[in-house]
């Protein structure tokens, strides 16, 4: 098998050399790519400015579909943010040592995804400039916030998740930025100096560091389950047929891990290639991530089936019509994109050879990303477009403003990730070293 013939770094120094190679000056191609992404982000900012100035009318939102691309994209990015924590925290606690090579990238992805996600509840507000009404603090308006509202729960769920994922990322980074600090002389030295927080590599510091990572893992683990559960309650708590269902929390969490894993693969495959990290991010990783995808794809597929089954079994005519509409109504195309990408496309991953074939994995991962975006789109728009009152049914089509902002969110995410790639070691040096020694000792 291919895995056996893969090269393995021989010395500890080679780890530092390989991984810290990112600190060398960037290529023009890289600069160009980052600038291109920045341009796209700029387009999104312009679109947002247009929307803020003229009003939400520049979107395709309408009566009765008052949520669309923005909330879809919010849920999508929150979902993406889950794989990082899953890999770093849960797999850490389960001592799944293969995670070490990919956890840094996954954690960074989490931070950037959650930052991207957090923008969308603001972008979707009719009055963006009043967003602070959502925060409970004593104010001259004499108004408190409504803790019954799932949107208020979101403020805390996403807020907590942002803080924890940044902490987790920053703590894990300490030994590696210290190594990087000792190799550069320019402005980055100050940045790394601050982030390293006086790291000297003493055994005392190592002991504290590993305890901190363990505790943070413990804190972050329930969040993986809770954040997306809370996000799913945005829908499940409502009365909308197609939203009002108890399966949403586990269904959304599985979907989040599904899409998160797919995004890790989507991002790491080019990175692995560009930075020649084939000996660190190994086929074994793809194999394991593939297994996760197979598992979560199955759960997601099961959830789809259960939703349709329950719509029929409940004998609730509103629910039944909503799901009939979902499969065969105006939005049939979105539903079938969702089902194809999330259930049919991952099926080959049951075969190990497919899981170990990186280009195939990458293509499948991209389809899953697409499918999972459409999953949220389908839930939101088909539910809203076909509610109780037939006199108020409608069909929503996103406008250029929404699509620009959607594209800009991907650009924003990728731009942050690319800057991260050039600024920080994409693989946790110390953890892969551990792996090296363990392997050398014959574990």
């Amino acid at each position: 098998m291919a895995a056996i013939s893969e090269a393995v770094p021989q010395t500890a120094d080679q780890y530092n050399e390989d991984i810290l190679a990112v600190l060398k000056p960037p290529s023009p191609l890289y600069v160009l790519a980052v600038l291109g992404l920045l341009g796209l982000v700029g387009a999104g900012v312009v679109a947002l400015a247009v929307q803020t100035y003229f009003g939400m009318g520049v979107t395709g939102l309408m009566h009765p579909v008052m949520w669309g691309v923005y909330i879809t994209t919010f849920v999508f990015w929150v979902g993406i943010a889950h794989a990082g924590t899953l890999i770093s925290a849960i797999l850490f606690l389960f001592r799944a040592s293969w995670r070490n090579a990919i956890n840094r990238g996954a954690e960074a992805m989490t931070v950037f995804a959650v930052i991207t996600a957090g923008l969308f509840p603001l972008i979707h507000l009719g009055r963006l400039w009043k967003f602070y009404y959502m925060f409970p603090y004593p104010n001259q308006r004499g108004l408190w916030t409504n803790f019954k509202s799932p949107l208020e729960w979101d403020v805390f769920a996403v807020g907590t998740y942002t803080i924890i994922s940044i902490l987790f990322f920053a703590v894990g980074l300490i030994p590696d930025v210290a190594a990087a600090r000792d190799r550069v002389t320019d402005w980055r030295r100050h940045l790394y100096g601050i982030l390293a927080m006086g790291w000297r590599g003493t055994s005392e510091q190592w002991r504290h560091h590993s305890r901190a990572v363990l505790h943070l893992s413990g804190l972050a683990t329930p969040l993986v389950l809770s954040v997306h559960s809370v996000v799913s309650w945005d829908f499940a708590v409502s009365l909308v047929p197609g939203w009002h269902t108890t399966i949403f929390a586990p269904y959304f969490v599985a979907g989040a891990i599904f899409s998160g894993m797919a995004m890790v693969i989507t991002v790491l495959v080019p990175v692995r290639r560009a930075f020649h990290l084939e000996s660190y991010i190994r086929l074994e990783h793809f194999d394991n991530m593939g297994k996760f995808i197979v598992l979560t794809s199955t759960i997601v597929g099961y959830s789809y089936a259960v939703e349709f089954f329950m719509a029929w079994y409940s004998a609730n005519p509103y629910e039944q019509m909503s799901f009939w509409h979902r499969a065969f109504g105006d939005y049939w195309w979105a539903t079938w994109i969702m089902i194809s990408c999330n259930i049919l496309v991952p099926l080959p991953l049951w075969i190990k050879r497919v899981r170990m074939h990186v280009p195939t994995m990458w293509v499948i991962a991209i389809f899953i990303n697409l499918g999972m975006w459409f999953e949220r789109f389908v839930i939101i728009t088909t539910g809203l477009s076909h509610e109780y009152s037939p006199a108020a049914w409608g069909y929503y089509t996103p406008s250029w403003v929404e699509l620009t902002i959607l594209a800009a969110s991907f650009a924003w995410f990728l731009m942050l990730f690319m800057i991260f790639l050039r600024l920080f070691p994409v693989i946790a040096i110390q953890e892969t070293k551990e792996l090296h020694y363990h392997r050398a000792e014959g574990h």
Partner: protein
Amino acid sequence: MPEIDRRDFLKIVGLSAGAAATAACREPVEKIVPYLNQPEEVTPGIASFYASTCRECPASCGLIVKTREGRPIKVDGNPADPISQGRLCVRGQASLLRTYDASRLAGPLKRAADGNLVPTTWEDGLSILVDKLREHSGKVAFLGGLETGTLDGLIDDLLAAIGSPNRVRFEPFAYESLRKANEQLFGTATVPQFRFERADLIVSFGADWQETWLSPVKQQIGYAEARRGGKAFAVYVGPRLGLSGADMDEWLAPVPGTEMQLALALLREVALVKRADLGALSGRLRSQTTAGAAEATGIPVERIRRLARRIADADAPLALPPGNEMQGSNATGLAAAVQLLNYASGAIGKTVVFGPDHNLERLGGFSDLKNLAGRLRSKAVGMLLVHGANPVYAAPALGFAEAMASTFTVSFASANDETTALADLVLPDHTPYESWGDAEPLRGVRLLQQPTVRPLRDTRATGDVLLEAARALGVGESLPAGSFKDAIAARWADVGFDQALANGGVFNPAPQRSVTLSAGAATAAFENAKLSGEGDLVLLVYPSLGLYDGRSARFATLQEVPNPVTKLVWGSYAELHPDTAARLGVEFGDVLRVTSEAGQLELPVVVHETVRPEVIAIEAGQGHQPVEPGAPDPDYLKLRSQIGANAFTLLSGKTDSESGALAWLSAKVRAEKTGAKLLMPLTQPTFDQEGRGIAQATTMAAVLGLDAGNHHAPAHGGEQHEPPYADAMHLETVDFDPADDARSPDYRWGMVIDLDACTGCNACVTACVQENNIFTIGEELVRQGREMHWIRLERYVEHHGDEIEVRHAPMLCQHCGSAPCEPVCPVFATYHNDEGLNVMVPNRCIGTRYCANNCSYKVRRFNYFAYDRFLREPEQLRLNPDVTVRSKGVMEKCTFCVQRISAAKDQAVIEGRKVRDGEVIPACAQTCPSQAITFGNHKDPASRVSKQRADGRAYWVFQHLNTRPAVTYLKSIRRGETGKA
């Protein structure tokens, strides 16, 4: 920490203050300036009410105008007036917009040397008028609409004084054939009153008695009265089931043009049963067999017989003579046949009452206009004065534009229209809310109209202009002295001008008089309508509910009130039966080229099953050139170049030979698919309620409790029982008491809507728009699904075999006791108040729109744009100062007119009592001519809402969702044997 010294402290303070001030730099500050000298009768914040008259159509309803700080903001019917009885229609409610029309004429205009109309002064304009009157003395013609007051006499006097008694009183809806028929049958060329309230059977032969025909408000009130409690069966005869027909119990759709045969067959059968003496006419009826009529009309014999039996059996039947849409080449004959049916059934004197007549005798009609066009062409008329008429639009077949070209034309219109655009001199009149006037719509019912706002533009009352011109011409002594107002006061002096002004008029209806049939005089031929032209479709042009004959088309509000049948807005559409559409290979939105003898139009198709398959139906009133309605489309403040198409251009000007009336139902047309397809501004995507029980109905038998234990034996002629919706859907419902949903010990506001009374007329929609500052957003935004109405008329079509039943349900915020919208708002912008109201606070809203998503009734509306920027000077003056003007990005919805609740509570507190039942009336309930809406307090067991809620017909929409709605619906009642047919 470093010490901060005094200087640093001051710097920091200065900087912070500067920063704070800069941050606050947003909108310019507008100062509220108090009156320097407060005018008498004006107290800021307190409304004043004035009685006046609605001049939107000849029905001339009495009004109460609500003014705030010197500007009218809302109109409602005058309860003292026997016509409006405190109610108004969809057009009356919007009539203020004529005054606040941004594009009305700013001042006098004259035709310059380069051919353009240019602004001029009144002095100049008047001197031109006087010069021209002198020049053309003896050859002056005055073309006006229906005037029934002082102005009417003044015009006659002036024309007499200058020796030019050429007066044409033209209304597109002039009822010439009905007057002619009455003249022939009863020797009186008048229009009697049709007393709906006395009838127990109403049969309309294509009369749109609710939209435009005669006096829609009065008739709708009478209809509701006749039908209350399940009384009065109603039948509609006509090729298209419009608003008026939709509420009636049975629909007979004869093949277009054969209505006569149906009427005669009915007449013959009824006359036989009732042994009515029709004299010489009996012989002419002998050949009119029911079987023959059934064959020609396509209506089964038994249904014709059943209707005849109903008419014969009824105590007080009422047959309505044809409205415009069924006015064909046989109009007089058909009107005569229907009036004979009334005679034979004993309705004359009972439900068809001569005296007080509609004051229409002197009204001319299409033939007078035709004459005038001829005289213009032959130069017999050298100067034309036009006031309140728009012949260029309304009668394209007469070629008025070309006939007027060589005539010096003066227009007195207050806003530009097709005729005014061709005039040589424009001397704009005030709008009705700015001017004095009077009217006598029914003999003896005299109404006064008084100004309620200072003229907003440089306009002058036409009465004053004519008086001034007469004095300048030296013929002033034959006219009243003083101003036009003085003339009115003088004319009213005998009945007490001041008292009449306070009351709105003097209401002494002329007494009823009896008429006798002079059957021999009926010379009109009883023949079918002649249809001419190539093609296989019959053109049915029907008058518009919202636009009347087109005179209201410039009101954006009315353009945005959905058509009661198609639920489309802002345009003209060709309505086809599904079979016809399939035959032509078109579907909803496909553009059709419609060609008649007279013209060609391209119109998008609407498909619905309430037209006959042979018919292509087009609403009249659209297609104005130039158009200037005050709504943007699709961009901010951009005005449209055209709205819809003028259906009159398809009529070739054929007339009824007896009366000279324009034959509306006379053209056959060819329709071809163009291949183009349009996105349509549709406000309701489906008319199928999917058995969801939104608009429910029950049967007469169930109301009377006759069918207990008799579910399997259809004792009532196979009548279908309404499915109990929630049960059929296996959904549990829980009974609830709305009084539990308010913490206040005194009040829990609620509403009851009687769907049996509701006819779907949309008056509540415009009343709500006016009261609550709801913005009109334009066609493009409606097409995008952003309509703003807080109350909408949901229309549903139920099929019982081949028979069709139309139901309407007004849908507005249900003020649920357990509202889905409330818990999901993160910022308490919507919450439940102590009195059970579901309150919406726009200023708190940040626009998450979750409330709208979670609203099961879909009655929440979002401000997608800053619609207040759509307002053009002086439209902002019509805004109700008691209601917030919403900005972009916030949600809004029905408040149950919370401003009126507050006002009533304030008054109650001052008087140390609780609010009385009926003291708070929301705008929708106030105007509803059918009195379908009742508002009140559920904490008071004696209130009308509490009592009605206990009615056996009561139900709650989506009750199984446990939202505990405060709006109770009463099921409509399906009368008769098979319900609607």
